[in-house]
């Protein structure tokens, strides 16, 4: 008898909040005050952020010079790959009407260059670039090995297609001898890239470390000769190389090339005046109907931003306000009508 009563008690469902679906809960309710105040607040926030962003974007000084056409003869020369050993330089003078205050950054910008193609992005070997296994060229097709079977270092399509123009900015003070604007080539990469993702193979001599590998087919010189003056910028640790290896998301992109070293005349930034870009034109773009340009720009707190974000915020804020006003109108109108309805 005792057992049966125990059995049947087992059958009785537990009286817990979970099992009886009585868990204490907060019911989400779209109340008029909540929604409308939320909308107003969001509107204010968006408008505020938008205006701030627009103002800061306006404060940025930026100058962009497309040099594919200006250096037309060089572009033509580079269209034929056999001319790779012929040097071609091109000088582009320009006038800076206003001083560029503060830090000035120099970018190269490519149009129509697809760094985001599936096969392109994959075509690299991180284990090679981190210096642990130089011979690992597994993913690098079609630039993994040279014709004689020597592994390429750095291998892959990304490394092979590195941007190899040299751009020098000169300042023509008093229209006499141009002064080369001092530029820093360091600090243009992420810390993690420079110190974690890219490492040279450990060896006393860099060239011996790369023994048994060959340079990528389009490169003029091997990787260990990229910057022979500064060992911290040589081999895989070369900043330009690292910058290039961080592939762009879209076919039009700009990558940081140099930043202004604020010494001598340039402690305040780039003063207004006559300048010129002296470009050693190596990187062919006309073959794929691309274009390249060089950009000088200052920054603000949020980085060098375009107007897009600010405009988008402003528009969103404005629309949100409009929406909240019309919602309020609808709400008030209906409230009256509903009261009437209930009274009837």
């Amino acid at each position, binding site marked *: 008898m005792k057992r049966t009563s125990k059995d049947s008690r087992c059958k*009785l*469902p*537990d009286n817990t909040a979970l*099992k009886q*679906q009585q*868990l204490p809960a907060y*019911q*989400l309710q*779209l109340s*008029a005050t909540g*929604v409308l105040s939320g*909308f107003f607040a969001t509107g204010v926030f968006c408008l505020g952020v938008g205006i701030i962003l627009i103002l800061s974007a306006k404060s940025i000084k930026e100058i962009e010079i497309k040099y594919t056409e200006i250096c037309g003869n060089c572009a033509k020369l580079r269209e034929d790959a056999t001319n790779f050993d012929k040097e071609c330089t091109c000088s582009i003078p320009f006038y800076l009407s206003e001083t560029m205050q503060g830090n000035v*950054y120099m*970018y190269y910008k490519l149009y129509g260059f*697809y760094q*985001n*193609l*599936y*096969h*392109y*992005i994959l*075509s690299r070997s991180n*284990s090679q*670039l*981190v210096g*642990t296994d130089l011979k*690992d060229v597994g*993913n690098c097709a079609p630039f993994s090995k040279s014709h004689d079977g020597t592994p390429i270092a750095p291998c892959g*399509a990304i490394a*092979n*297609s590195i941007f190899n123009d040299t751009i020098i900015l000169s300042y023509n003070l008093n229209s006499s001898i141009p002064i080369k604007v001092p530029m820093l080539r360091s600090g*243009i990469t992420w810390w*993690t890239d420079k110190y*974690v993702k890219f490492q040279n193979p450990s060896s006393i001599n860099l060239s011996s470390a790369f023994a048994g590998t060959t340079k990528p087919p389009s490169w003029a010189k091997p990787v260990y000769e990229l910057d022979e003056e500064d060992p911290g910028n040589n081999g895989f640790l070369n900043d330009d190389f690292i*910058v290039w290896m*961080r*592939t*762009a*998301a*879209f076919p*039009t*992109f*700009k990558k940081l090339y140099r930043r202004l070293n604020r010494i001598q005349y340039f402690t305040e930034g780039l003063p207004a005046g006559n300048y010129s870009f002296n470009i050693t034109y190596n990187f*062919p773009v006309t*073959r*794929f109907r691309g274009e390249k340009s060089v950009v000088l720009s200052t*920054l603000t707190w*949020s*980085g*060098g931003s*375009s107007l*897009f*974000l600010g405009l*988008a915020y402003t528009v969103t804020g404005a629309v*949100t306000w409009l*929406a909240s006003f019309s*919602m309020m109108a*609808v*709400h008030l109108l209906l409230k009256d009508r509903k009261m009437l*309805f209930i009274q009837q």
Partner: protein
Amino acid sequence: MLSVFCSGEVVCEPPNNKLDRFSGTLYWKESKFPLSNQNMLLRGCVLRNTEWCFGLVVFAGPDTKLMQNSGRTKFKRTSIDRLMNTLVLWIFGFLVCMGVILAIGNAIWEHEVGMRFQAYLPWDEAVDSAFFSGFLSFWSYIIILNTVVPISLYVSVEVIRLGHSYFINWDKKMFCMKKRTPAEARTTTLNEELGQVEYVFSDKTGTLTQNIMVFNKCSISGRSYGDVLDVLGHKAELGQKPEPVDFSFNPLADNKFLFWDPTLLEAVKMGDPHTHEFFRLLSLCHTVMSEEKNEGELYYKAQSPDEGALVTAARNFGFVFRSRTPKTITVHEMGTAVTYQLLAILDFNNIRKRMSVIVRNPEGRIRLYCKGADTILLDRLHPCTQELLSTTTDHLNEYAGEGLRTLVLAYKDLDEEYYGEWAQRRLRASLARDSREDRLASVYEEVESNMVLLGATAIEDKLQQGVPETIALLTLANIKIWVLTGDKQETAVNIGYSCKMLTDDMTEVFVVTGHTVLEVREELRKAREKMLDSPHAVGNGFTCSEKRSAKLTSVLEAVAGEYALVINGHSLAHALEADMELEFLETACACKAVICCRVTPLQKAQVVELVKKHKKAVTLAIGDGANDVSMIKTAHIGVGISGQEGIQAVLASDYSFSQFKFLQRLLLVHGRWSYLRMCKFLCYFFYKNFAFTMVHFWFGFFCGFSAQTVYDQYFITLYNIVYTSLPVLAMGVFDQDVPEQRSMEYPKLYEPGQLNLLFNKREFFICIAQGIYTSVLMFFIPYGVFAEATRDDGTQLADYQSFAVTVATSLVIVVSVQIGLDTGYWTAINHFFIWGSLAIYFAILFAMHSNGLFDMFPNQFRFVGNAQNTLAQPTVWLTITLTTVVCIMPVVAFRFLKLSLKPDLSDTVRYTQLVRKKQKAQHRCLRRVGRTSSRRSGYAFSHQEGFGELIMSGKNMRLSSLALASFTTRSSSSWIESLRRKKSDSAGSPSGGADKPLKG
């Protein structure tokens, strides 16, 4: 003995489902014996009054007639399941379309741009043309975009359904304390369909009723007894019952019998002759067999529970039916044994609707006692009792209004001469060769005339607890309830009234009893004409003109008056024929209530099938016995009442519980929630997968259609499994829009499910559109920002990996906010899952992008350092915030406007007052008991013909009982009970199963 039998051989018809026919031949020792239905015992029969018998099993297991009646088991799926499959197919088509577009894009791109780009990225060796590249890219995109076809959807749906099933199993409010049985979801695939039920098909006995008859009231010579009175003599309200009447004066009384009106006992004790005669009649005029295990321990074996109740009532009021022989009946009248000589039993049948006995009392006076239907009996009374007749009629009306089953009692004195002559005639008639029945009937008719009215009895066919309330509530929820029963028409109609399916407010109750196709068709046609012609037919101008344009069916559905249809089994057989089924369905669906009586198990299934096929509505069948199995299997949802008789119904069912009243909770609470949750879940699931996947599509236009994904591959893998699965599962399992009390209070809340409003193709496209809208913003806002911007240290912002992280992060945030909006009921678990998912996302992100993992697997974890570098940028966070705002704000605005302009019943808070008012009106309707007019007879008697003859022949009496000697103690009353139940549910031919009771 058996070995002798082994040499025999039976040749018979193949297994079939006809309960009333069998033909075969037994060959034994070179002789042939024909076997007919008379020689058959069907599965489920109980042998009565027979110690032993020899038999041969002809059909066993699935071949038995009962199982042949049970129909095939079908795989049940919900309509949402089917819709889901269609949608998945569509999505697959959509996927192929996207693949084709992108492949064409790839071919063009490779032709225009890629070819020139070969210096930097030569084509694969296998690729020789732009066209082939496009072909390959098609397959790549099919693989990348396959996340729109949600594979995990099916798994998640099953998990949610499992959760809902557990909630049903765990529900304390569906636990029957008396039988200690919990509700049980026996399937986990049908839960959300519980929220869409439009038709409920219910068995009667054991489902709506307890199959217990209670002697409730009586009217004796113009005075009504049985009202529950309080101390002051006013009619007591429910819930304050006084003590039941004390029957201790009577040692033979049945303790289980309860009566609340002491005045009746007083009348008996005072020796009121009418009252005595009344109970004497009850103790004499019946076909009950008694059994006395020990001295004073009486057990009655009644062929119908009604009779049992009447005889038991007489027993308790001091007229104890003690024993009978074929020729005598012994009754203890107020303590003294009186033996009456039983001269004749004028047996009951459906046409006569009455039964009589002729007895000679010890003084030698011959008296005829008769009980029967008021409609029949009141015409056969002696004209001198007009006044009594009118009061009794009033009482009868009152009883009928309460849904009680009434019988009128009358007697007549016969003199010896007349009886002798009549007995002669009867004998002649019974010996007649042709039309014996008719002759007997006319002989009976003759003697049963000019009778003196004694009174009337009212028996309550005890309903299961809460049945009328449940039916009323389900009706308010726009669920149509059809009762399909094997019982007789009167019984079924009576129950219809007592459980408020039928009311006297109804414009008309159509009764279809035709025996031929033409009759049935004519009756149905008349019913429809009446419905259309009635002045109520025009509801209001608007609905009418709107519906008129539709076909006839909808015209009929717009009928405003309340009608009910009662149809008999034999008429139903015609009505279900192919050429009439639509007519029948039209008529039946226009009625508020439908009762089908005397239907076979197969017919039950056919009716369900008919509605299922033509109405495109979700049907639910509920029953308790083996005869309901076929209907339970046929309906979309089958519910078995557990803990009654047998377990066949439960085994065939999808849900089982032990009380009919739990059906309201199953449908209005569990079903509604299940449906709501499932719909919300599906909407969100499609939305999140589209928002996730379509980004790849847009990116395709910027990456040369090269099948480059936007996100890190780990994110793609984990998105559906880890980052977004649990919050939506929690919503699917726990969400509630209104508390359970509200869904019982406002049954109209059930309607969206029936109309399939929450998830249909339109809703699906809205979800998809929202997903695509989100994906567009998710891609183009970061694109617009990244294209030009740089980081705050001057370096490039728009590198692929940062873009991937930004889009992924804003996606996870947007879908999390969206699920937050969709979740109407934030329990701790929801909080845990939603916040947990976000936390997990960032934890995994930072772990995947950590230096440690990169050092170990530099080729697998390419995103090293990305999270901390990207997410440290204010621009990135501003982008994510903007994306979230732009994706979510329109949704909030839309929902808010919908709430203001077109609120659902469920999200109406400010309407509460208004709805309450309506609700009160409805409650008033519900409480209305009784009726104003007297159009209806309360007569119902679940009795069958043939027992009188049996008793007079003495065939069913054991030798021991004939000798009135010791009673065996072997037989218990339990099998009598089960027999009673089967008996009253029997659906066979009216006279067929008399000695072979079968639950059919």
